[in-house]
């Protein structure tokens, strides 16, 4: 088996994609990271303490995983959805009764969205209580705050799209709050809804925000966020206890 894998990773075709051999030596493992477009967000080596589950709970990574699931299921749902009244609601019914695995698709998208909001909030709390927001990581914390806002807004704009009673009135509560803003409130509501009440224009605007503008904002911010983790010296770790470090050195 191992020989077969080694032979395959030695072929000219494999080498044209990955310009290194099987990742069984430290040299090839290093090349696997820094010759790979997707892996280059990581350093070649990380501190052993940094990858322990109990230190971070992997909350940031799990939020990103939820976002990936949401992208995949969201794109699939877009094939079946028309952002107009009353077709939007009829498409929900089609997902429920006509489309193969339509119920599963919508369920997965909805639960992943709730999970992502919860995980992002938990990620923020853990980051704060670990003290990881402090310099030199202060700007990455600020990016994180805006990513959290993007997450909440994504979930909120998605809430209207099924166009059922729950969606309609939940969003009504939110937009009434926005209207209360001094001076700009009424204009803000008009801009958001494309009218004075939630109707077909509002549905279209929320759809564009949900499927184009906010995901773009989130992806862009997420790239900078992850890149900054590396540039700021990896994730925050409290300074190691001096005695423990020397013990390990001697060992």
């Amino acid at each position: 088996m191992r020989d077969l894998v080694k032979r395959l990773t030695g072929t000219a075709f494999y080498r044209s994609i990955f310009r290194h051999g099987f990742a069984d030596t430290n040299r090839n493992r290093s090349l696997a990271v820094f010759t790979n477009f997707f892996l280059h967000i990581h350093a070649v080596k990380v501190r052993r303490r940094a990858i322990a589950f109990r230190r971070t709970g992997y909350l940031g990574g799990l939020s990103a995983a939820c976002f990936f699931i949401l992208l995949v299921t969201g794109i699939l749902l877009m094939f079946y959805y028309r952002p107009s009244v009353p077709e939007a609601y009829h498409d929900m019914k089609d997902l429920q009764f006509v489309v193969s695995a339509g119920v599963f698709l919508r369920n997965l998208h909805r639960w992943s969205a709730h999970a992502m909001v919860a995980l992002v909030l938990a990620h923020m709390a853990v980051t704060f209580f670990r003290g990881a927001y402090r310099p030199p990581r202060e700007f990455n914390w600020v990016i994180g705050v805006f990513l959290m806002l993007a997450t909440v807004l994504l979930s909120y704009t998605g809430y209207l799209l099924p166009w059922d009673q729950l969606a309609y009135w939940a969003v009504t509560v939110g937009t009434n709050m926005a209207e209360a803003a001094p001076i700009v409130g009424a204009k803000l509501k008009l801009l958001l809804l494309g009218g004075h009440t939630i109707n077909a224009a509002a549905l279209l605007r929320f759809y564009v925000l949900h499927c184009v503008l906010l995901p773009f904002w989130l992806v862009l911010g997420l790239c900078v966020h992850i890149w900054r983790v590396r540039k700021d010296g990896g994730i925050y770790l409290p300074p190691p206890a001096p005695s423990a470090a020397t013990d390990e050195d001697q060992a």
Partner: protein
Amino acid sequence: MNEPKTFEVGPGDDARKAPVRVVVVQAEERPAVDAADEPMVMTVPHLLLRELIAFLVISLVLVALALTANAPLEEIANPARTPNPAKAPWYFLGLQELLHYYPPVISGVLLPGLLVVALVVIPYVRINLERPPLAPARRTRALVILWATLTTLVLVSYFTGSQPVWPFIGTLLVVGAGMSVGIAGRSPGRVVSWLRGRSIAFWIFSWFLLTATVLTVIGIFFRGPGWSFTLPWRDGIYY
């Protein structure tokens, strides 16, 4: 720049192979330079494998959830028929609960706006990030300042809302009790010394988190028709 150096200057172990090693350390903090010599592992496979496992576990959990629980779908939107109560998504129910006490301009705009500003500036306010234990002579002064501030905030919460804002008052008192033990506690126990080491930023953030949780839980479970107080085990959960 009188702080002790966190890096070593001198020839490296491999001086014979690489005899010239110049390190330039700028005045600002550079975490990569500060990093102590500690055990490292290769990203491939150690980190990558953990990321993969985490992704698979969350995928399986969500798939299992999607197979067992259905997303809600009610009848088609009808602007003429308002459900009672009309509730926002769960992460906004803290704000909606706040609407019960303050007009929308405060609970829907001012307080959330202040919150975002506070979250953004929190790492730039460098007061009291690591708190040195207070000298005995200053303990009394700290306690007086603390309780004067808390009393003011409690009175403001009591009288400004359309009714006393108990979710604010209760959490203020809890946090105040924790801070007081941290300031005045003399026992060498682990709890007291842990409380003693917390910074002001920690207490403010903890208060915010506690209050947001209390408001959200009340909004989700304890509010029924007309935003009246209900008990979830008696009347069920309204949404």
